């Protein structure tokens, strides 16, 4: 019998090997369980963890009726992997060019880019509506094309293109930079909302049932409602564009305001831009010039000056003035446009004929401080805070004023205001002497600078007495008188309309003085004069020749007529009861010095 014996050495060696191996296992066990077990548990948890951003939907910008002026839409970008698309590049290029409206040659280059950077990732088209992309990609799959994928690429669209673009602004192509202009930028915090996030265990993109899931829901952006009326805005913009083009002017502004509430129903700038394609236009036109660029308002200012003169008790509408051909203040001559010789005008006549000299004489009955107080109470020299970006406060020079300064300020030169300020100021006359601050935002909203704006924060301040406002309103009706006035073109049959023209010289940008033969023309008015519903301001800048009554007044008439018709304001068929504009007889008048 041969019994098999085991060598003690081999036995010991075997045990040693087993012990070594087991010690490794032991060490690993200690490492896993004793040293930082949390991080290993976390690593295990992360395995297969999906993290998905839940995008918040950007709030819409709507008009006063809820019509969307800026809306958000699901969009996708189409991406190609050239390694997979190169084989059938020409065929696929034609297919995509036809279906998505993209450039064939640029697409072909991208589909063939198999070397260098982006050889597996070429963006073919961006911001295409998701429905369209899904349909096109399904057709592409049917055709057997490979290598096309999509990624989320939300679309911000502006259904009315250029309508209200100067107010709304736009969002640029670069997502990192965010909104680039207008209310989109000013109220971005409110509109953007907050993205949410979902974390869950998933296999191949699908959630494992009963696995841990953490979902932070997105908070959608809030809608921003404007006081703008879409149809009125469209008509105002088109009418303004027509007048600017017809007169070969450099730019124009038109503002329509609800006389009682101060709501801006239309706010138009021209030239403007297409919010869906802002790059097609110079960025000089992206802003809201009617609020950002102050200008010398010219004769429109006379309505404010003479209101102050009447309200302070220094004159009445039929106060008699003897207006010479020229006067001189501080060595500077002042004259009236197109008038020779001495004229005997009432204060109403001074306004109807837009006499610089008559206005100067009336203003000189007041102290500079007093006149300045009235002008600032009308809102000049301070921002309206409607919510438009970069609003200018304009300039009302500090007192003391020189004689020539008081004279020019009284008829709207040597002072600057924005069209928006001037519309709100004249609206105070329409609103019975109470200035309501203009509003562009319905309700309340906070700008990026933390200023709360909107109709909820509108203020009403009495500037002149109701009696003075009524007198001034009657005086402004004489401006539209076919014989006496400077703007008979603004008359609307059946309605009593009050208004004032403005023809201001344009300061020379290259030095002192004014440009020859170039004017900023404007017209502001309200109707029906006995119970005003709308105040409309039209300014046409950089007109060669022309006058407010010729250029801006017809545009005012069209816009005001549209508003009266659109809002169904019936004609009153009342006739204006104008003041006497001239006087006869001996003497030099009764204007108190």
């Amino acid at each position, binding site marked *: 019998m041969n019994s098999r014996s085991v060598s003690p050495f081999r036995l010991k060696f075997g045990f040693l090997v087993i012990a070594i191996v087991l010690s490794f296992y032991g060490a690993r066990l200690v490492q896993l369980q004793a040293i930082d077990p949390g991080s290993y548990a976390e690593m295990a948890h992360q395995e297969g963890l999906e993290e998905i951003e839940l995008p918040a939907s950007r709030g819409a910008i709507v008009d006063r009726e809820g*019509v*969307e002026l800026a*809306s958000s*839409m*699901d969009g996708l970008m189409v991406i190609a992997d050239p390694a997979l698309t190169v084989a059938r590049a020409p065929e696929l290029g*034609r297919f995509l*060019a*036809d279906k*998505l409206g*993209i*450039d*064939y*040659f*640029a697409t072909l280059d991208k589909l063939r880019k198999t070397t260098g950077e982006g050889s597996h990732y070429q963006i073919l*088209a*961006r*911001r*295409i*509506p*998701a*429905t*369209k992309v*899904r349909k096109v990609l399904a057709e592409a799959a049917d055709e057997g094309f490979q290598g096309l994928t999509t990624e989320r690429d939300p679309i911000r*669209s502006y*259904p*009315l*293109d*250029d*309508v209200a673009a100067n107010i709304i602004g736009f969002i640029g192509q670069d997502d990192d930079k965010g909104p680039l202009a207008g209310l989109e930028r000013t109220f971005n915090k409110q509109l953007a909302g907050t993205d949410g996030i979902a974390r869950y265990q998933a296999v191949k993109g*699908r*959630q494992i*049932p009963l696995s841990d899931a953490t979902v932070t829901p997105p908070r959608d952006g809030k809608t921003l409602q404007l006081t703008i009326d*879409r*149809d009125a805005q*469209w*008509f105002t*913009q*088109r*009418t303004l*564009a*027509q007048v600017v083009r017809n007169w070969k002017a450099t730019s124009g502004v038109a503002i329509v305001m609800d006389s009682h509430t101060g709501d801006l129903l239309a706010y138009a700038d*021209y*030239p403007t831009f297409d919010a*869906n*394609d802002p*790059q*097609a*236009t*110079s960025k000089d*036109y992206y802003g809201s010039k009617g609020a950002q660029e102050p200008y010398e308002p010219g004769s429109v200012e006379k309505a404010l000056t003479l209101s102050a003169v009447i309200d302070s008790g220094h004159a009445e509408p039929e106060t008699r003035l003897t207006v010479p051909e020229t006067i001189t203040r501080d060595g500077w001559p002042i004259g009236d446009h197109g008038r020779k010789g001495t004229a005997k005008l009432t204060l109403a006549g001074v306004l109807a004929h837009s006499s610089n000299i008559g206005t100067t004489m009336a203003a000189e009955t007041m102290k500079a401080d007093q006149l300045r107080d009235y002008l600032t109470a009308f809102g000049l020299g301070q921002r309206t805070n409607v919510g438009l970006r970069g609003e200018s406060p304009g300039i009302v020079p500090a007192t003391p004023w020189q004689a020539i300064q008081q004279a020019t300020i009284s008829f709207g030169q040597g002072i600057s205001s924005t069209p928006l300020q001037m519309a709100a100021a004249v609206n105070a006359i329409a609103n019975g002497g109470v200035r309501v601050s203009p509003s562009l935002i319905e309700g309340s909203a906070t700008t990026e600078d933390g200023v709360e704006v909107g109709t909820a924060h509108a203020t009403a301040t009495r500037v002149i007495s109701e009696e003075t406002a009524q007198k001034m309103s009657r005086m402004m009706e004489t401006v539209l008188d076919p014989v006496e006035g400077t703007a008979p073109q603004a008359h*609307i*049959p*059946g309605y009593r309309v009050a208004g004032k023209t403005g023809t201001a010289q344009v300061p020379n940008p290259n030095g002192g003085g004014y440009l020859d033969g170039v004017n900023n023309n404007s017209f502001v008015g309200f109707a029906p004069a006995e119970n005003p519903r709308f105040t409309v301001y039209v300014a046409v800048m950089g007109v060669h020749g022309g006058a407010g009554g010729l250029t801006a007044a017809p545009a005012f*008439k069209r816009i005001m*007529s549209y508003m*009266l*018709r659109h809002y169904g304001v*019936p*004609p009153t*068929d009342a006739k204006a009861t104008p003041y006497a504009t001239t006087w006869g007889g001996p003497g030099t008048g009764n204007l108190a010095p």
Partner: protein
Amino acid sequence: MSTPQLSRVRVTRIAEEAVERARLRVVPATRVRAPKVPFVMLVSAILLAGVVGLLLFNTTMQQNSFAAADLQTHADELRSQEQALQAEIDELNDPQRIGEAANRLGMVMPVCPRFLYTATNKVTEACDEPPAKLPIDPPAAARPDSLVPHRTVVKVDAPTKGADTPVKGAAKAGRVGSHGASSTN
């Protein structure tokens, strides 16, 4: 008369008998074996039912998960579709489009509003200006030269006689393209 010795003997005998009677004896084993099969079957059945139930439950959960994901995708698609339709409605409601259509039909807009009083059949005063076409020319875009997009133009030779069947797609390839999906030149 009994003697004390006799009494002790009797007592001893009685005690022995009592002890004999009181002694416990092992009962003969009557071993009853409970049947194993039903128990095993029961346990197996419970286990099997549990496993199958769990499997079915898990499968149902998975199916529901897939269904939920599919429904979510469908909901997203429907939302996109709704947005596209809304965009279409907005486009149709665009005052510019309506104005252009009105102009094509020869419609004009009165400069001044006029009202008809139905009670008296009187019409308000007419305007001194004739009605005019809507000023709907879209504003010309002031595009800087540097932003005018590059256009690729390919000149295609006129088809020669005999080449009646052009190559498929040649006409499309030869068109003028524009850059960017949203470009509307």
